[in-house]
C-alpha cells in the first residue's frame, strides 16, 4: 500500500521533489535554511532559532527516500550543518549533539509519516492532518528534544534548567512542522502546477487577502509600549484571525498553511526586531511565548483548512458521482427524479423530460410530468402518486403517456419515500423507465398464446368431428322421423290431433337439443379473449360428457361420475376450462384404449379443496405414467402417442397458470393415472 502511494506521488515528478532528492541540493537547502533562520532572528548569543527550516528540508528529503538510503542525506547535510553553526560560533560538541537531534527529529517524522500516512500527501482529510500533527508537532519533537536540550545545557553549562531547554527545543521544532512543514509538503505533492499563468478571480482574491494579511500583521504586531499598556493587546492578537479564517475557508489547507506561514514569519520577524505583543520578559521568554502562541493558533487553523478541503473534495466527488449516475440512468433509459415535500423543490434528470416528450424549456415540476399521462390512466396514476406523497407509501405502477393512440408509450414508475429521523417523510424519489418495447413483446406473446390455445382447441375438436357430428345426427334423426310420422298421422281420414301435438313437441325438444350442440361447438371454436366468470364445474363436466357421448361409446369407454353436490363456483374462463376437461378426458380415453373392457372406465369427480379452491379429478385405469415420463408430461412437444403434437398438457398447464390454478398428474395406487386440476373459486 505505502509503496504504491509513494510511486504515485513520485510519478508526477514535481520539479521540487526531484530537486529535494538530490543530496547536494539538500545540503545547499539545509545551509540556506539555517542562514534564513539566523537572518530572521537568532538570539546569537544563545544560538537558538525560534523555528528551524533545515529540519523540515531534511524531513522532506527523507520522506521521499527509502529508509536504507537515508545515510546519504545525513552525510550530505553534515557539512552544511557544520558550516552554518560554526558561522554563528557554536562549539564542536554542541554542534554534534544539535546535528544528531536534528537528524533524529527529521528521521522520526519521515519514518512515522511514511508508516502511518503512506507518504507526503498528509492534508487532504481531517484525520490525516490530525495524525500529521500528532507525529510531527507532538510526538517526535518531544522525543528529540530530550537530546536537544543538552545543546543549550552544554552552552550554558548547567542542567538545572533542563526542563526549560527541553521546552524551547521542542517548541522550535514543533512550530517548524506546523508552519513550514505543510507548505513544503503541499508544494512537494502538488500535481497541478499551472502550465501557463492566467489571472483569474481566485488568483486575484488570493493575492489580495495575502497582501491584507501581511499589512494587518505588520500593523498589529508592531506596537509601542503605550499600546500594550493601554490594554489593547488581546484585541490586536485577534486582528489577523478573520483574514486567516478567510484563507482557510476559501482556499482550504493551502490557504490555511500559507496564512500560518505568513503570520508566523511576520510575527517572529517583528518580535525579534522591535517591540511587539510579546514584550513581557527577556528575549528568550518572548520567543518561547510567541512559539506557544503560534502553535496554538496554527493547529486549529490547519485542521480547519483540512476539514474544508475534505468537505470540498466530498462535494466534488458527490457531484461527479451524480453526473455519472445521471449519465448511466439516461443510457439505460431511466429517468430519475426527486420531490422534496417541505420546499416543493423538484429535481429530475434531463432524460425524464425527453422520455415524456416535454421541451427543454419546461419548468421542472412533478405535475408537468404527470399531466402527460394518458387520460385513461391519469386517475389511478395520479392517485398512486398522491398517496405516496401524502402517506409515504412506495409506488410501483405502469401507465401510458401520450394523448394520441399512435404515439403511446408505456412507462413504469417506481418511487420510494425518504424519511429523516426515522419517520419524518421529507421527500419522494423515484425512477421512470420506458417499457414500451417490453409491453409490445408481452402483448405479442399473449396474442400468440391465445392463438395456440385456440388452434389446439380447433384441432382437438377436429379429432372429435365424427363423434360431434353424431351428436347432431341423433336429434336430426328424431326430428325427421317425428315429422314423417306426423305426416302419416295427418294422412289418416280422422287425424289424431293430440298425437300431432305430441309429435310437434318432440320435434321442438329435439331441435333445441341440436341447437345446443351447435352452440357448444361454436363457443369452443370461437376465438377471443379469456373472459373470467363464475363457472359451475359440475355443469361444465356434464355438458362436456354429453358432447363426448358418442366418442365415449365409439371408443367403448364407460364413465363413472362422482360430483360433489355443494361444489363452490369456480372463477375462470368456461371455454378454456372445458378445453382442459376435453383434453384430459381424451387423454384418459387414449390411456384405456388397449385395455380389457373391465378397465375401460374413466372416473370423474369434483371436490372443494381448502377454503378457496375447487378440484376436478379425471382418473383412468390404463397403464399409468412411466417414471421417466413424469417430468416431461408438461413440456411442449413431448408425447407418447402415435399421433398428437405433444402440446395438449403444456397448454392445459399454461391455461391453469393464467387462472391462478394448478394442474398435476399422478399414478393411482392400483392402476392407471389421475389428472387433477384446481381452480380458484369465487370469493363469497
Amino acid at each position, binding site marked *: 500500500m505505502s509503496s504504491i502511494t509513494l510511486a504515485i506521488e513520485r510519478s508526477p515528478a514535481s520539479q521540487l521533489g526531484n530537486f529535494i532528492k538530490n543530496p547536494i541540493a539538500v545540503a545547499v537547502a539545509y545551509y540556506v535554511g539555517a542562514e534564513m533562520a539566523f537572518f530572521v532572528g537568532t538570539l546569537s548569543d544563545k544560538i537558538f532559532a525560534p523555528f528551524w527550516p533545515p529540519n523540515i528540508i531534511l524531513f522532506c528529503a527523507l520522506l521521499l527516500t527509502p529508509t536504507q538510503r537515508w545515510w546519504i542525506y545525513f552525510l550530505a547535510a553534515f557539512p552544511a550543518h557544520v558550516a552554518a553553526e560554526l558561522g554563528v560560533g557554536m562549539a564542536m560538541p554542541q554542534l554534534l549533539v544539535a546535528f544528531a537531534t536534528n537528524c533524529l527529529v527529521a528521521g522520526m517524522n519521515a519514518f512515522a509519516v511514511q508508516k502511518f500516512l503512506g507518504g507526503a500527501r498528509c492534508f487532504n482529510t481531517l484525520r490525516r492532518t490530525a495524525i500529521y500533527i500528532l507525529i510531527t508537532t507532538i510526538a517526535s519533537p518531544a522525543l528529540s528534544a530530550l537530546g536537544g536540550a543538552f545543546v543549550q545545557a552544554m552552552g550554558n553549562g548547567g542542567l538545572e534548567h533542563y526542563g526549560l531547554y527541553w521546552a524551547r527545543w521542542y517548541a522550535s521544532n514543533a512550530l517548524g512542522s506546523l508552519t513550514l512543514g505543510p507548505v513544503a509538503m503541499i508544494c512537494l505533492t502538488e500535481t497541478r502546477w499551472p502550465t501557463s499563468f492566467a489571472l483569474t478571480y481566485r488568483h486575484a482574491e488570493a493575492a489580495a487577502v495575502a497582501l491584507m494579511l501581511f499589512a494587518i500583521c505588520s500593523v498589529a504586531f508592531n506596537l509601542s509600549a503605550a499600546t500594550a499598556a493601554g490594554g489593547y493587546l488581546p484585541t490586536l492578537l485577534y486582528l489577523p484571525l478573520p483574514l486567516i479564517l478567510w484563507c482557510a475557508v476559501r482556499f482550504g489547507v493551502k490557504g490555511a498553511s500559507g496564512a500560518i506561514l505568513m503570520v508566523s514569519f511576520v510575527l517572529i520577524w517583528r518580535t525579534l526586531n522591535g517591540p511587539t505583543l510579546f514584550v513581557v520578559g527577556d528575549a528568550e521568554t518572548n520567543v518561547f511565548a510567541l512559539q506557544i502562541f503560534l502553535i496554538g493558533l496554527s493547529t486549529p487553523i490547519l485542521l480547519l483548512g483540512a476539514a474544508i478541503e475534505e468537505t470540498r473534495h466530498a462535494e466534488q466527488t458527490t457531484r461527479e458521482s451524480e453526473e455519472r449516475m445521471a449519465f448511466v440512468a439516461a443510457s439505460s433509459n431511466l429517468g430519475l427524479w426527486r420531490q422534496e415535500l417541505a420546499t416543493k423543490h423538484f429535481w429530475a434528470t434531463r432524460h425524464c423530460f425527453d422520455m415524456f416528450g416535454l421541451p427543454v424549456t419546461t419548468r421542472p415540476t412533478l405535475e408537468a410530468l404527470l399531466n402527460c399521462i394518458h387520460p385513461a390512466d391519469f386517475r389511478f396514476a395520479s392517485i398512486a402518486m398522491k398517496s405516496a406523497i401524502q402517506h409515504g407509501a412506495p409506488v410501483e405502477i405502469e401507465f401510458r403517456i401520450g394523448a394520441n393512440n399512435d404515439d403511446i408509450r408505456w412507462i413504469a414508475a417506481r418511487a420510494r419515500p425518504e424519511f429523516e429521523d426515522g419517520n419524518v417523510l421529507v421527500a419522494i424519489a423515484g425512477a421512470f423507465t420506458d417499457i414500451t418495447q417490453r409491453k409490445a413483446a408481452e402483448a405479442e406473446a399473449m396474442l400468440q398464446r391465445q392463438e395456440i390455445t385456440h388452434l389446439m382447441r380447433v384441432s382437438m375438436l377436429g379429432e372429435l368431428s*365424427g*363423434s360431434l*357430428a*353424431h351428436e347432431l*345426427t*341423433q*336429434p*336430426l*334423426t*328424431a*326430428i*325427421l*322421423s*317425428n315429422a*314423417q*310420422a306426423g305426416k*302419416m*298421422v295427418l294422412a289418416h281420414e280422422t287425424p289424431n290431433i293430440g*298425437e300431432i301435438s305430441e*309429435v310437434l313437441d*318432440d320435434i321442438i*325438444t*329435439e331441435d333445441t*337439443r341440436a341447437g345446443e350442440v351447435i352452440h357448444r361447438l361454436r363457443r369452443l371454436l370461437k376465438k377471443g379473449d379469456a373472459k373470467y366468470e363464475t363457472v359451475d364445474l359440475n355443469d361444465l363436466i356434464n355438458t362436456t360428457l354429453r358432447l363426448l357421448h*358418442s366418442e*365415449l*361409446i*365409439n371408443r*367403448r369407454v*364407460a364413465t363413472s361420475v362422482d360430483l360433489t353436490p355443494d361444489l363452490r363456483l369456480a372463477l375462470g374462463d368456461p371455454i378454456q376450462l372445458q378445453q382442459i376437461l376435453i383434453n384430459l378426458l381424451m387423454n384418459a380415453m387414449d390411456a384405456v384404449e388397449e385395455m380389457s373392457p373391465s378397465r375401460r372406465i374413466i372416473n370423474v369427480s369434483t371436490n372443494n379443496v381448502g377454503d378457496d379452491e375447487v378440484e376436478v379429478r379425471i382418473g383412468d385405469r390404463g397403464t399409468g405414467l412411466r417414471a421417466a415420463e413424469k417430468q416431461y408430461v408438461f413440456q411442449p412437444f413431448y408425447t407418447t402417442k402415435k399421433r398428437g403434437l405433444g402440446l395438449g398438457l403444456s397448454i392445459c398447464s399454461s391455461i391453469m397458470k393464467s387462472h391462478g390454478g394448478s394442474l398435476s398428474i399422478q399414478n393411482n395406487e392400483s392402476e392407471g393415472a389421475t389428472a387433477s386440476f384446481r381452480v380458484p373459486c369465487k370469493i363469497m
Partner: protein
Amino acid sequence: MHDGNFTAFLIDDDPAILKALSRLLRASGYDVMPFHSSRAFLAAHDSSIPGCAIVDLAMPDIDGLQLQEALHKENVERPMIFLTGNGDIPTSVRAMKAGAIDFLTKPVRQSHLLAALTRAIEADAQMRQERASLQSINDRLSLLTRRESEVLRYVVAGRLNKQIAGSLGTVEKTIKVHRGRMMTKLGVRCVADLVRLAERAGITPQA
C-alpha cells in the same frame, strides 16, 4: 302402408330416437317393440314372432354388431337393419356379410327404412317358409327305419339296387321293397326329387 302382422324390434340407446322411430313405424302399420339396449332385447326376445330388428350400431355395453353375433351364436335367425350416425365401410361390409338386410345412415329417410323393412318381411317370410319345409322334410325323414335311411343314402349316391344289396349283404328284392316304402314315406315320385330332398336335409350320400 303395411297392415300385416309384422313386428319391428327397435333397439337404440337414445330415447328420443326410439320414440320417434316407434311412432313412424306404428303409423306405417307395423307392430313396434322398442328396447333401450341390446341386453334388454336379448332378454325379451321371442324368435317365433315374425319381425325384424332395427338396431343402432353404436351403443354402450353391447353394440349392434355384437348383438348380431350373439343372435348367430344362439342360432336365432332374425333379419336385421342397422342404423348408424357415422358408418364406415368396413363396419357396413362386416354387417352385410353377417346377413344384415341393410345398413342405413341417420337421419334415416322413411322411404329407405320402409323399403328395407319390406325386404325384411320377404326375407323373414322366406326364412320361415324354408324353415317350415325343412321341418316337414325332417319330420318325414324321422319316419324312416334305420335300413330305409341306409338305402336312401346309397340311392342318392346313384347306386343300383343290385349294388346296394351287395353292399348291405342282402338280396335285390329286399332292397326294392325298402326303397318303395322309403319313397312313399318321403312322398317323392322320382329319384331326382329324392336327391333334391336329401340335399336340403343335408344327407350325405354313401359312397
